[in-house]
């Protein structure tokens, strides 16, 4: 298997005006198509190859690496490769889930781009016969002060709200980042979780010869033609407005009818296979069902209901019109299938049949306009080994993925140039790409990346020279900052409770859902660590996995599995290839250490604008299980007199922190001790099992001080604590420093010794910080703030940053 030519940013692959690149194929891939076909393909066949062999559909640059991810486990019911993965909840119930990106459509047309992103992930889940019970989102924008970021955020959030609320699936949580690298190329990832009885799980690999093939849902229009191959698989550039026709338009009401009809058909056992039409439309659905079922299919495009007159077979086969499903009826059940379509007022048409011979035949006006083996489209796309040209930015030796010792500041250790050169060079590169405006937009005129980095110590900035009595104000600023402030201004526009299963919704460490008629429940979290990944993709990806699972544990749930959405830049450039390799290696390492498999996922490459890649961004969606849904760890401040403890790691730094961002510091990634993370999570679950945990909260953006403030904000009860004594630690680093594997625990007064014993048993360090009580957040010896001040900063910070009235 050969590799694609190495390209520099300037000459990156873009569609040109000859047939091959019009369909998005390289000359190498064109030659492979001719070889496999044994003849010159027709124009339609070329287009079908172009779509199915696109990065978006074929994972050309990631497949080889994705195979290295751990996907096996006792609870895994269905691994990667299906519409969604699934875990076994016991007693015959499966939980299906997947996260997917809709980045480029959202960059071009934010409202419809985000809306159809939700629609697509919902169809992936109900195509399996699973009823969607929750959606989550991970969103990444430029700085909230930038007009483009505000416009994109309003559009994206509006689209998600419009679509999800109308279909009636609760939005139970999410992640939002604001960083300059996402200004041009925002990231919009949507996750859906559904439930299905094991005996009703519907697959796309069970179509049998002679069965009727139906296309149901929306009529086929000219919207989104070749969106996957042309829009999602290349960099954004100057002519993106011209690509707006490649963005689809969503109809959530039709989606709701399609969902109910599909679930009813599966319940009636009237279908052999169901496949949603997403990227590459009818081409993808027909070839994938046929290839997976090892059969052929004869499709008459003239029978496909059109929204527009005079559509060519090419347009029909490549259209990405939304809200359509391909349904293969069981022989003899055609009338049931048509009756269900009618009842739900859906337009369902028989467009062909399954055939014995493994040939996909597309017919129009009585003639075959495309005749090819479905497997060629679905399985034979080339795979590129990006490690062949992967190179760490401005240094060759980073491929073994050793994490820079980020905790060094805390321990006062010196860093050798070698350890720092890769991340530093990378960040300077980013800044060049983003231009001078980037730093102005973060509002950090007090320091700059290069300067802080060469100074070596994060506290070497003007702000740190301010007397400590001002540090309370710094905490308020941080609580109100876009990285930390409450996201309620966003999630209050999402229906979080429809379905009446939401026990914990947005704002908790993880969402928690009950399952009607059962004792157990599921917890869901979605997280990302782009600021860390920018410095070290390996640590960033591993930290994202660790954080997502830690958040499950913080509500008392046992992690089962994850789904991942890898949003990266151009894999054809050495840096992009290196980031892809490091990101997957980081997820793999964390999954192995924490004993959790990957059951589904999605890769979005070419997130770059005019040669500037985004930061490598691994979005991790995690699902956990709780035996008794009434016994979760509640979102509370605890009661007066309760003991406050820090468990896990106290080694933190400002190098990739929100506080660092506020002073223009972004220089050293923290390190992650995956063994400690695993012990911490086991200890947390054991402590909860023993009934000793009153409340728990992950130490995340903003560090320990923000974690304590957020605890106090839950019931507006104060606390009096002292910073953990760590040798040589700077007060600001102790307060605002960030690092993985830290959880704040609240315990009943009498339980401290019992929990300490348990921690010792699991070899997890713990520090007693103080006690709950009063109406002040007192962190001795540095600050004391009234809860009311914290509430105002945290509640309205994001709205203010977005220039909205509060």
């Amino acid at each position: 298997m050969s590799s694609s030519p190495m390209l520099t940013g300037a000459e990156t692959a873009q569609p040109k005006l000859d047939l091959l690149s019009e369909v998005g194929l390289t000359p190498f891939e064109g030659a492979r198509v001719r070889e496999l076909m044994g003849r010159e393909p027709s124009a339609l066949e070329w287009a079908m190859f172009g779509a199915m062999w696109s990065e978006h559909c074929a994972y050309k640059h990631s497949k080889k690496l994705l195979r290295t991810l751990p996907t096996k486990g006792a609870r895994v019911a269905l691994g990667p490769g299906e519409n969604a993965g699934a875990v076994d909840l016991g007693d015959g119930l499966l939980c299906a889930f997947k996260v997917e990106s809709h980045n480029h459509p959202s960059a071009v047309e934010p409202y419809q781009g985000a809306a159809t992103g939700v629609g697509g992930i919902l169809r992936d889940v109900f195509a399996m016969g699973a009823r969607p019970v929750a959606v989550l989102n991970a969103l990444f924008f430029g700085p909230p002060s930038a007009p483009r970021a505000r416009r994109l955020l309003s559009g994206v959030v509006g689209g998600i709200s419009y679509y999800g609320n109308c279909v009636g699936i609760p939005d139970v949580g999410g992640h939002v980042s604001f960083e300059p690298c996402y200004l041009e190329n925002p990231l919009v990832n949507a996750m859906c979780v559904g439930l299905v009885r094991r005996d009703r799980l519907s697959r796309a690999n069970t179509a049998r010869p002679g069965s009727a093939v139906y296309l149901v849902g929306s009529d086929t229009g000219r919207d989104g033609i070749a969106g996957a191959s042309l829009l999602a698989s290349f960099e954004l550039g100057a002519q993106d407005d011209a690509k707006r026709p490649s963005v689809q338009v969503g109809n959530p009401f039709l989606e709701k009818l399609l969902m109910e009809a599909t679930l009813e058909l599966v319940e009636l056992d009237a279908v052999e296979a169901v496949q949603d039409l997403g990227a590459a439309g009818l081409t993808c659905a027909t070839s994938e069902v046929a290839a997976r079922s090892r059969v052929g299919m004869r499709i008459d495009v003239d029978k496909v209901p059109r929204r527009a007159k005079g559509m060519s077979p090419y347009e029909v086969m490549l259209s990405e019109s939304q809200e359509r499903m391909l349904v293969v009826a069981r022989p003899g059940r055609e009338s049931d299938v048509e009756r269900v379509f009618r009842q739900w007022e859906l337009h369902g048409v028989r467009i062909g049949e399954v055939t014995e011979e493994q040939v996909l035949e597309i017919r129009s006006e009585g003639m075959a306009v495309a005749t090819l083996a479905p497997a060629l489209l679905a399985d034979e796309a080339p795979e590129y080994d990006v490690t062949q040209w992967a190179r760490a930015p401005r240094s060759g030796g980073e491929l073994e993925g050793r994490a820079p010792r980020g905790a060094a500041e805390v321990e006062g250790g010196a860093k050798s140039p070698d350890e720092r050169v890769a991340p530093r060079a990378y960040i300077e590169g980013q800044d060049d790409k983003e231009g001078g405006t980037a730093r102005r937009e973060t509002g950090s005129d007090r320091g700059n990346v290069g300067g802080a980095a060469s100074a070596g110590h994060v506290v070497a900035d003007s702000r740190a020279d301010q007397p400590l009595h001002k540090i309370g104000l710094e905490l308020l600023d941080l609580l109100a900052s876009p990285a930390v402030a409450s996201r309620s201004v966003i999630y209050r526009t999402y229906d979080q409770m429809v379905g009446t299963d939401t026990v914990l919704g947005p704002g908790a460490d993880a969402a928690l859902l009950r399952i009607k008629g059962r004792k157990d429940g599921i917890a869901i979290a979605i997280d990302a660590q782009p600021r860390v990944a920018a410095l070290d993709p390996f640590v960033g990806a591993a930290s994202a996995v660790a954080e997502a699972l830690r958040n499950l544990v913080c509500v008392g749930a046992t992690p089962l599995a994850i789904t991942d959405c890898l949003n990266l830049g151009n894999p054809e450039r050495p840096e992009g290839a290196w980031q892809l390799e490091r990101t997957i290696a980081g997820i793999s390492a964390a999954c192995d250490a924490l004993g959790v498999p990957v059951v589904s996922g999605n890769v979005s490459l070419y997130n770059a604008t005019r040669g500037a890649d985004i930061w490598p961004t691994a979005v991790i969606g995690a699902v956990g299980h709780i035996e008794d849904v009434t016994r979760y760890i509640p979102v509370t401040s605890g009661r007066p007199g309760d003991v406050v403890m820090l468990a896990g790691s106290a080694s933190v730094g400002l190098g990739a922190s929100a506080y660092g961002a506020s002073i223009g510091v972004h220089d050293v990634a923290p390190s992650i001790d995956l063994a400690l993370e695993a012990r911490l999570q086991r200890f947390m679950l054991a402590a909860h099992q023993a009934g000793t945990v009153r409340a728990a909260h992950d130490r995340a953006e903003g560090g320990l001080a923000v974690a304590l403030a957020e605890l106090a904000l839950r019931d507006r009860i104060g606390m009096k604590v002292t910073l953990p004594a760590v040798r040589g630690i700077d007060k600001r680093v102790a307060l605002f420093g960030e690092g993985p594997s830290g959880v704040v625990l609240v315990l009943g007064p009498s339980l401290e010794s019992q929990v300490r014993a348990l921690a010792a048993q699991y070899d997890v360090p713990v520090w007693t910080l103080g006690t709950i009580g009063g109406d002040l957040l007192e962190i001795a010896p540095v600050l004391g703030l009234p809860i009311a001040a914290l509430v105002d900063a945290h509640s309205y910070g994001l709205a203010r940053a977005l220039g909205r009235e509060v």
Partner: protein
Amino acid sequence: MTRVAILRYPGTWSERDFQHALSLVPGVESDILWHEDADLAGYDAAIVPGGFTYGDYVRAGAIAKISPATRALRRFADAGKLVLGSCNGFQILCEAGLLPGALVRNRGLEFRCDWVHMRVESDTTPWTAGLRGAILRMPIAHGEGCWVADDQTLSDVESRGQVMFRYTDERGAATPEANPNGSLANIAGVCNEGRNVVGLMPHPERCSEALLGGTDGYRVLANLAPALAGAAAGIYR
């Protein structure tokens, strides 16, 4: 046994939520009826649940009001049977002329999902029996929940005691801050002149279990329990 019909239109999404909440009320059994062939004979009460019927593409409830189910519902209501509309169901009942006023885009033009407080203004309907003055905490989830009416209608509704629920703060004060959508006079729910048809924007079915964060919805739905239903009916007959 009180028999409750839950109407299901294309785009309805609260019907299963209501059925589950009603399953918690002793002596109540409910069926979900498809709008095209909804036969309400033999039912004591009907519920029009929330959702986005027909996508609300024309106007919330505008298409649903011409559905066969809505015609059946009008006869059912005229016969003095109990009808409750929540969220989109409230919109449909107003569109159908079964309840006074209309519901328009929220002030602020934004969909809002949140917990609100409301005061029960009248207990002389079967749905609010025994709840007079109670401050209920319930979720809302709507983009078009701003209740409006012309001056005459508003004064009639007020003077006839047809205001059932008013948005307030947790202490029961009907302040502008406590009004989540700009509704006239903080009105969250109204009833018809016959007092057997009640509509409200909040979602009682979402707060009928402590596990979900509140049980005030149960206090309303529990009025359907046979023991109470009879007594309640007596109040307005």
